[in-house]
C-alpha cells in the first residue's frame, strides 16, 4: 500500500527517458528534502523550544546576551520540582486521567453497541440513525457550552468530574461510532452467519466473534477518545471552578499564570508534562492511529 506511490516513479524512469531528470539527485534534494526539512523544522520547533525552556535555569532563560538561547548550559529540574511539589499539578494530572479514562470507557461502550446495531442488526432506517449520529459530530462544543453549563448547574454536577465525564461523550460517541461502523463493515458477515447456524446467540456472537476481530478498531477508537478528552478545553473551563478539580490544560492556563510576571519555565514544564502522557500513549499505537485516521477518511 505504502509503496504503491513509488511504483509509477520507477516505471517512469524506464518508460520515458526524459523523466530521468526528475529522479536526478540534486533535483530530488531541492524538490523533496529541502521542503520536507523546512516542514519538519517548523512543525517541531515549538516542542524543542518547550523542552529547552522547561530545563533552563531562570538566569539563562532571560539572558540571551551571554547564553545561547538554543542550548542549555546548566540544565536544571527546578521548574519540574516546583510544579510537582509547590502546586497541585499531580492532582490535576490524576483528575485529567480519571476523567479521560471514564469518558473513553463510556463512549467506547455506547458507540460499540450503537455501531454493531447499525451495521450488523440492519433494521429499517438504520442508515438514517447512522447519519444522524455522524451529523452530531458536526455540532461544535463552542455552540453547546452555554446551555450545557446551565444544565450542569441544574443537575447539581457543576464543579464535579461527572460534569466532564457525561458531556465529553457528545463529541466522542459520534466519531467512535463512525469509525467502528467502518471497522465492522470490514469483518466478513459470513463469520457471524456460521456462528448463528452453530446455534450461538446474538450476544455470544458479539462477545466471541465480532468484538475480538474488531480489537484494532476498538484500540484506535480508544486512542481517539483518550486524546480528545485529554485535550478538551472549553467544557473543562466552563464547568469546573475549584482549583483541585481542574484538568491539566485548564489548570496550567488559569492556575500557573499568576500576575504579570509569567513563570515561563514552570509553564513550559507543565505543558511538557501535560503533553507527555498523550504522546507516549499515542506512540505505542501510532500505526493503528494513522491507519484508522486514513481509513475513517476514506469511508
Amino acid at each position: 500500500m505504502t509503496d504503491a506511490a513509488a511504483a509509477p516513479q520507477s516505471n517512469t524512469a524506464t518508460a520515458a527517458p526524459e523523466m530521468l531528470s526528475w529522479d536526478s539527485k540534486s533535483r530530488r534534494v531541492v524538490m523533496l528534502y529541502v521542503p520536507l526539512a523546512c516542514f519538519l523544522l517548523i512543525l517541531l520547533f515549538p516542542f524543542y523550544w518547550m523542552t529547552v525552556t522547561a530545563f533552563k535555569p531562570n538566569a539563562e532563560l532571560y539572558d540571551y546576551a551571554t547564553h545561547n538561547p538554543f542550548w542549555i548550559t546548566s540544565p536544571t529540574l527546578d521548574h519540574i520540582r516546583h510544579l510537582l511539589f509547590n502546586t497541585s499539578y499531580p492532582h490535576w494530572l490524576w483528575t485529567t486521567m480519571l476523567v479521560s479514562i471514564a469518558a473513553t470507557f463510556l463512549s467506547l461502550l455506547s458507540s460499540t453497541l450503537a455501531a454493531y446495531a447499525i451495521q450488523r442488526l440492519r433494521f429499517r432506517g438504520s442508515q438514517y440513525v447512522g447519519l444522524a449520529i455522524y451529523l452530531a459530530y458536526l455540532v461544535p462544543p463552542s455552540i453547546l457550552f452555554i446551555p450545557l453549563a446551565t444544565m450542569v448547574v441544574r443537575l447539581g454536577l457543576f464543579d464535579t468530574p461527572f460534569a466532564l465525564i457525561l458531556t465529553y461523550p457528545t463529541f466522542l460517541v459520534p466519531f467512535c461510532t463512525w469509525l467502528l461502523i467502518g471497522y465492522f463493515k470490514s469483518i466478513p458477515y459470513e463469520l457471524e452467519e456460521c456462528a448463528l447456524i452453530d446455534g450461538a446467540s446474538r450476544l455470544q456472537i458479539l462477545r466471541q466473534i465480532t468484538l475480538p476481530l474488531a480489537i484494532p478498531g476498538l484500540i484506535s477508537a480508544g486512542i481517539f477518545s483518550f486524546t480528545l478528552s485529554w485535550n478538551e478545553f472549553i467544557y473543562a473551563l466552563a464547568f469546573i471552578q475549584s482549583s483541585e478539580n481542574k484538568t491539566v490544560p485548564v489548570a496550567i492556563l488559569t492556575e500557573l499564570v499568576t500576575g504579570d510576571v509569567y513563570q515561563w519555565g514552570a509553564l513550559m514544564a507543565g505543558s511538557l508534562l501535560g503533553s507527555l502522557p498523550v504522546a507516549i500513549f499515542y506512540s505505542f499505537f501510532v500505526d493503528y492511529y494513522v491507519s484508522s485516521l486514513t481509513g475513517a477518511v476514506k469511508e
Partner: protein
Amino acid sequence: MSATTAPVWTKTRQQPGALARLFDNKAFLIIVCLAPAVGLLMTFLTYPLGLGIWLAFTDTTIGRPGIWVGIENFEFLMEDPIFLNSVFYSVFYTAVATFGKFGLGLWLALLLNQHLPMKSLLRAIILLPWIVPTVLSAIAFWWIYDPQFSIISYLSMKMGLTEGPIDFINTAWPARWSLIFANIWRGIPFVAISLLAGLQTISPSLYEAALLDGATPWQRFRHITFPMLMPILAIVMTFSIIFTFTDFQLVYAITRGGPVNSTHLMATLAFQRGIPGGQLGEGAAIAVAMIPFLVFATLFSYFGLARRKWQQGESND
C-alpha cells in the same frame, strides 16, 4: 417450557435461558444497543442545542431564569462593534487559515507520497502538533510570541532583519496574523495525513497512462491527482472549516481576545459574555449566530466540492 419460536430440533441442545432468548429478539436487541448512544446524545447534545436557541431569545443571567425578549439580544449585538469585529475576524481567520492549511497540507502530503526512508516514523512525527493538547502548544506559541524574550525576535535581530523586538501580539493586526499562523501550524498535520491517505488510493495505472500520453507533472497533478482527491478534500475541508470557525482554545490561550478585543472569535466572545460576564442569554445569542455561518460553510464546501465527483460519473455513495 419450550419457547414459541423454538423449532423442534432445539430439543437436542440445551435451552437458552430466558434472558438469552430476550437478547435474541432483534427488536429488543436493537433498542438495547442504541439506547446508551442515542440517550447520551439526546440528553447532552440535542437538548442543549434547542435550549441554547431558546436562551438566545431570553435575558437569562447566571442565577436568574430569564424571560422571553424576542430578538432583542440580536438587535443589541448588531449594533455592538465588538461583536461585529468578532464576526469579521472569525470569517477572516477561517478563510486565511483554511487556505494556508490546505495549501501547505497538500504540499506536505505530496512530499510524503514520494519514496522516502523511514516513512512511518516521519508520519508519526508529523502528527505530533495535532496530538498534543492545543492549549499546551498554544502556551508554547505564547512564549515564542513573548514581547521581550521572543526567540524569533532574537533570531531576526541577530541576522539584522529588525532593529528591536518584533511585535507579535500587542497590536491588532500582528496579533491576528500570529494567531492564524498558530492555527495553520496546528492544522497542517491532520490535512496532510488525510490527503496522503487519499493520494495512496489513486491507482498508479492512471499516472502510467498519462505518462504514455506525454503529460507533464503539472498536467498529471491537475487532471489526475486533484480530481481524484476531491471527495476526501471535500470532507476534510468541511470538518476543518467548522472547527476553525468555532475555534476557542488558541485565541483564549494566546491573547484572550485582546489587544482591545481585536482578536475575539465568536466563540471566545460568547464565552466572555456568557460565563465570566454572566450574561447567558447574550452569550447564547452569539453562539447561535455562528450556526448560519456553519450551515453555509458546510453546504458550500461539501456540495461545492463534492459535485465534481458526480460529474466524473463515479458511483454515488
